[in-house]
């Protein structure tokens, strides 16, 4: 009997299997980029005094993370290790420049409010962190989904913080008056930088209180 070689089983990767759905839902709670991985904290604190810039920032970051994950993952086998960081930075910088110019052209008021923080998406640890931790070792479609998932996790925290800060600090949500100035005196502390730090501490407290798996992580 001839020795039949068994062909190695090709790894099944589906479009939306369980692994892909996990990549989308994990960053929302268990592996949240801000509260668990401690990435992207700078912009999360700085742009959340109102909901509109926070939302635009979240969308911008999701686009940059997903697209850069996709591009670097497609290139991952041909990047020389010595210049790995420079290549990643160039790809991300180019994408951020495009996002920045697009915002400047179509939504100038938001661009003016976000100012330097759009450019700082380049140094946003979420983008670099996911590139190093995921895109360099995984296939393009999975990397793209991972980028979207982490962007969503980031966006959730941003919207929560911005909602609390805008409603309590100004009485509005996305510009719509919720707590009318007739009886509500806006709490200016919420608009100050330190409030976002306290809020973030409390959000982490609450999240770890419910999700006890996370207690004990740095």
């Amino acid at each position, binding site marked *: 009997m001839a020795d039949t070689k068994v062909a190695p089983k090709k790894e099944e990767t589906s479009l939306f299997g369980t692994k892909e759905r996990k990549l989308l839902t994990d960053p929302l709670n268990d592996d949240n980029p801000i*509260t668990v991985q*401690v*990435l*992207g*904290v*700078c*912009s999360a*604190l*700085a742009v959340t005094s109102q909901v509109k810039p926070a939302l635009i920032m979240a969308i911008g970051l999701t686009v940059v993370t997903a697209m850069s994950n996709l591009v670097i993952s497609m290139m991952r086998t041909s990047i020389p290790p010595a210049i790995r*960081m*420079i290549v990643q*930075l*160039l790809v991300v*910088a*180019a994408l*951020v*420049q495009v996002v*920045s*110019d697009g915002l400047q052209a179509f939504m100038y008021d938001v661009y003016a409010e976000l*100012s*330097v923080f759009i*450019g*700082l998406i*380049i*140094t*946003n*640890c979420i983008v*670099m962190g996911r590139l190093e931790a995921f895109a360099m070792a995984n296939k393009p479609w999975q990397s793209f989904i991972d980028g979207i998932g982490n962007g969503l996790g980031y966006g959730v925290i941003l919207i929560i913080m911005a909602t609390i800060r805008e409603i309590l600090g100004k009485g509005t949500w996305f510009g719509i008056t919720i707590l009318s100035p007739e009886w509500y005196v806006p709490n200016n502390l919420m608009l*100050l*930088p*330190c*409030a*976002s*730090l*306290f809020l*973030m*501490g*409390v959000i*982490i*407290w*609450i*999240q*770890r*209180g419910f999700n*006890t798996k*996370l*207690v*004990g*992580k*740095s």
Partner: protein
Amino acid sequence: MDALNIFIKAAFIDNMVLAYFLGMCSYLAVSKSVKTALGLGVAVVFVLAFTAPVNWIITNKILAEGAIIEGISFDFLGLIIYISVIAGLVQFLEMFIEKVSPSLYNALGIFLPLITVNCAILGATLFIVAREYNFAEATAFGIGSGVGWMLAIVALAAIREKLRTANIPAPLQGLGIAFIITGLMGIAFMSLLGLNPATYFG
């Protein structure tokens, strides 16, 4: 005297970490012991002290309108060039530290190359560009921002070291309490808001 005022403003009043939240990731991660915090702080000061003037020169002498070719501004290349300058300088600093102080190099570990993506460095450059400082002001701003960042991270490290024996609720330990401490420090630094160094230093 303008440069000195800007230095004081950048270090204490417009503190990079406490007022603008730049550099939070490494700030939170490396502030567990004062020694490593001090090492990282000094490294950040060095990087800022060199990249601020270099990026100013690039912005105003190379990328500005009409600098190389009449009527054309290369501003759109700004972000890519700034980050490349920073990456090159951090690479150089890494080699320098490895030679001069191997113990610090080992203590800092991955966070030394991560200075490249420290928002405070790129943020300082972007602020300098946006506020259109001149050369002396830009350098003073760079060094001042670095010193301010260093102050904040060393302060947080010192407090966290003391808190190791405190009775903090479990979900709040580690990251949660670090945020709240930073918030309290932010309020403390806010007492300096509105202080105009020019009234004292002319």
